């Protein structure tokens, strides 16, 4: 039976790089009904096709390139797409999302998903156009930086409207945090999916399409869409949207430093005295030249900058986001904004995650300070805090995997193992993924977000802005009046288990739809009702019109991803925080003295999730009620079910 639902392109592509084959297949009805798209469907595919025995950088690993029903159909903000695989950096569940224009283009080219396995005998890239797929020679592209690669592909195919997802030299050399760059300066940065592409000799994916996407009931869908947009336009959010449009994520430098949560000096503290030097006003005044938006987006948080002269002079390019300003800025005690812009741009061109790269350099700087690293081990480089020359050199070395860069290209967890001694104390990661720009010592629930996140220490699977920015009406509406005061207290661990459980469920849907965290995380407008309102008219799947069904689906996806990690050996002991963020009280700034009460929050989270508090394993009945019988059976056989 052909795929009956609208909103989707209706086909997916199976690519076997070893055989050099591409097969166009009909989308699977049950995938859409039970897992929606993006993250949800990826978790089902990866559960079936990868496992404990899969080496992340081997031909056996599978890379899923995904979109969702919301991609390319005018829901704002939805110009996104995602990748999922088993991570070479962490060895566990990996997903990374990106904005831009590639996701919608992939659907107009006829495909909702691409499932890639094997290893090509020589470099190739995949080209999609109007329902057809072709593997093309990429030997002339191998070694090229990401922007050059995209220009060359557009020229050789004589189509300037082609959108791309490509890797750079870092991904080719399998730097463990190699990224995939979308349309020049947007990145699926985290978890090393660029290295997975590199290991498969896949230089990139290019798409150009003129196929239509339909709605099940266009009039009703547009009306539902308009209703949701109207919520976003509420005067209540005018200030938030104004800030996003004027500053983009750079505004977070100021907002986050104000509450003492801005990672500074390799996460030693959460307050940076020179924060004003790295954003947001200085960027808006001196460097910003234009505002941009992802496909069909009404928020428009992206900006273009230009450094006119001096050492770091640059042609116009996509500006660094908050995380890059933090990773190469405050976290390395570097207040030279032009150098940060340069380092961010180099990471985009080389195809590396700015967070893991910057954090690996900050980590090495602290080892230098502590005497664990000396000049004999760094090839003469001086790793003093804020040393711009060293940072510029290290970024190149890491991408080439040369000198000190060879060790740092493995990320902080493995680098710490290589350095030995006390180095582990300064490796700020969870499950092998370098922490993003938050600090749980200034915001309790961030600790739980980091600890339970299926891909490691970052904010994008469940960060709550509700208590950070203070939205009492929304907290009362979602969690009830009696819990509101405690939830709104950023330094109270109470009810944070329920809060983060709910956020994680909600974002599992956001990542399956596939839409942006803006509009859901901040401002917190879209909720389960949004999906129930829009999806039936868009897709024709009537069951999604029931909020209870929507909530159940969100829990199904969240559980399946967790189970994927359990099968690889992840238990409660891994759902923790690095020593510094768990045991060393915040030394300075507005959050001075702060520490997260992780155990209390974890206990409550496991209760809500339906997991055993000792191991974190799920209860059988919880999996059964979500239709995850096959997961229950598998985990049971491995002794990974809650007793």
């Amino acid at each position: 039976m052909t795929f009956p639902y609208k909103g989707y392109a209706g086909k997916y592509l199976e690519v076997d790089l070893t055989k050099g084959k591409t097969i166009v297949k009909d989308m699977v009805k049950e995938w859409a009904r039970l897992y929606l798209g993006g993250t949800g469907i990826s978790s089902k595919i990866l559960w079936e096709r990868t496992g404990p025995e899969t080496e992340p950088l081997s031909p056996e690993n599978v890379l899923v390139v995904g979109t969702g029903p919301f991609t390319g159909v005018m829901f704002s903000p939805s110009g996104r797409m995602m990748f999922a695989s088993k991570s070479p950096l962490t060895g566990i569940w990996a997903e990374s999302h990106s904005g831009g224009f590639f996701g919608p283009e992939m659907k107009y080219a006829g495909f909702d998903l691409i499932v890639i396995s094997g290893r090509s005998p020589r470099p190739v890239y995949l080209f999609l156009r109007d329902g057809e797929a072709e593997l093309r020679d990429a030997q002339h592209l191998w070694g090229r930086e990401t922007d050059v690669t995209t220009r060359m592909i557009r020229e050789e195919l004589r189509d300037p409207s082609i959108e791309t997802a490509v890797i750079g030299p870092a991904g080719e050399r399998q730097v463990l945090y190699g990224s995939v760059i979308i349309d020049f300066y947007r990145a699926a940065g985290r978890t090393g999916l660029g290295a997975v592409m590199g290991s498969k000799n896949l230089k990139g994916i290019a798409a150009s399409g003129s196929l239509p996407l339909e709605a099940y009931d266009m009039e009703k869908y547009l009306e539902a869409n308009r209703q949701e947009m109207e919520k976003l336009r509420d005067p209540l959010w005018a200030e938030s949207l104004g800030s996003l449009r004027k500053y983009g994520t750079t505004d977070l430098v100021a907002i986050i430093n104000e509450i003492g949560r801005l990672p500074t000096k390799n996460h030693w503290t959460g307050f940076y005295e020179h924060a004003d030097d790295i954003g947001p006003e200085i960027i808006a005044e001196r460097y910003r030249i234009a505002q941009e938006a992802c496909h069909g987006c009404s928020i428009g948080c992206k900006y273009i900058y230009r450094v006119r002269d001096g050492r770091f002079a640059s042609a116009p390019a996509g500006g660094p986001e908050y995380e890059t300003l933090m990773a190469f800025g405050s976290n390395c005690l570097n207040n030279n904004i032009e150098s940060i812009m340069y380092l961010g741009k180099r990471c985009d061109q080389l195809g590396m995650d700015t967070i893991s790269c910057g954090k690996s350099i900050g980590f090495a700087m602290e080892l230098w300070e502590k005497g664990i690293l000396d000049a004999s081990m760094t090839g003469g480089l001086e790793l003093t805090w804020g040393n711009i020359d060293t940072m510029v050199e290290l970024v190149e070395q890491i991408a080439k995997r040369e000198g000190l860069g060879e060790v740092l290209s493995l990320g902080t967890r493995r680098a710490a193992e290589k350095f030995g001694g006390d180095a582990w104390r300064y490796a700020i990661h969870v499950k092998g993924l370098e922490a993003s720009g938050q600090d749980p010592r200034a915001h309790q629930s961030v600790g739980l977000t980091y600890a339970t996140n299926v891909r490691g220490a970052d904010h994008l699977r469940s960060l709550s802005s509700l208590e950070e920015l203070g939205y009492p009406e929304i907290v009362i509406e979602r969690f009830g009046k009696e819990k509101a005061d405690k939830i709104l207290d950023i330094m109270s661990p109470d009810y944070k288990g329920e809060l983060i459980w709910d956020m994680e469920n909600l974002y599992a849907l956001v990542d399956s739809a596939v839409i942006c965290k803006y509009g859901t995380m901040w401002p917190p407008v879209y909720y389960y009702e949004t999906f129930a309102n829009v999806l039936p008219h868009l897709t024709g799947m009537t069951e999604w019109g029931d909020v209870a069904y929507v909530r159940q689906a969100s829990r199904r996806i969240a559980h399946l991803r967790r189970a994927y990690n359990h099968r690889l050996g992840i238990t409660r002991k891994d759902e923790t925080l690095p020593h510094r963020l768990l045991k060393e009280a915040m030394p300075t700034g507005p959050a001075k003295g702060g520490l997260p009460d992780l155990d209390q929050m974890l206990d409550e989270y496991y209760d809500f999730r339906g997991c055993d508090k000792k191991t974190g394993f799920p209860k059988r009945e919880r999996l059964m009620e979500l239709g995850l019988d096959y997961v229950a059976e598998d985990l049971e056989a491995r002794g990974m079910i809650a007793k």
Partner: protein
Amino acid sequence: MREFLTIDIDLCTGCRNCELACSVHHTSTFNPRRARIQVIRDEARNLVIPVVCLQCEHPLCMEACPTGALDYNEAGVLTVDEARCIGCGACVTACKYGGITLDPIERYAIKCDLCGGDPACVAACEYGAIQLVAADLDGLAIRDHNIARVATMLGIAQEEQQ
């Protein structure tokens, strides 16, 4: 009175929502390639240039059409008679501004028809970059300003001065 669309590229973010709205209005599907308004992007040179029919006084596309498929409708807007269009593309070649193109699926010429006076793209632009103006002195002044900005951005204006 004659009307036309004019776009302020300083407000345009290149999100291409106008293309989506246009394709929904004209094809009842989401298909930017069938839109009558197109946003040309060249990230390497930081160019984001929306292109739409200028509703010219003396339309070169109409002059170039060998079958008379381009003609004014009751509202006075130049439109394509799909039945008479043979898809030769002479109009596309003739237009200096990229304001008319061939539909990639149906293969006949497509151009902006102002949606009968209430353009879908104007309503869909969250950034207020697209305006429908009357072809009077004020409207022409707005268009003149907006075209000058595009010319400057492309480097054409500077070249002419040299």
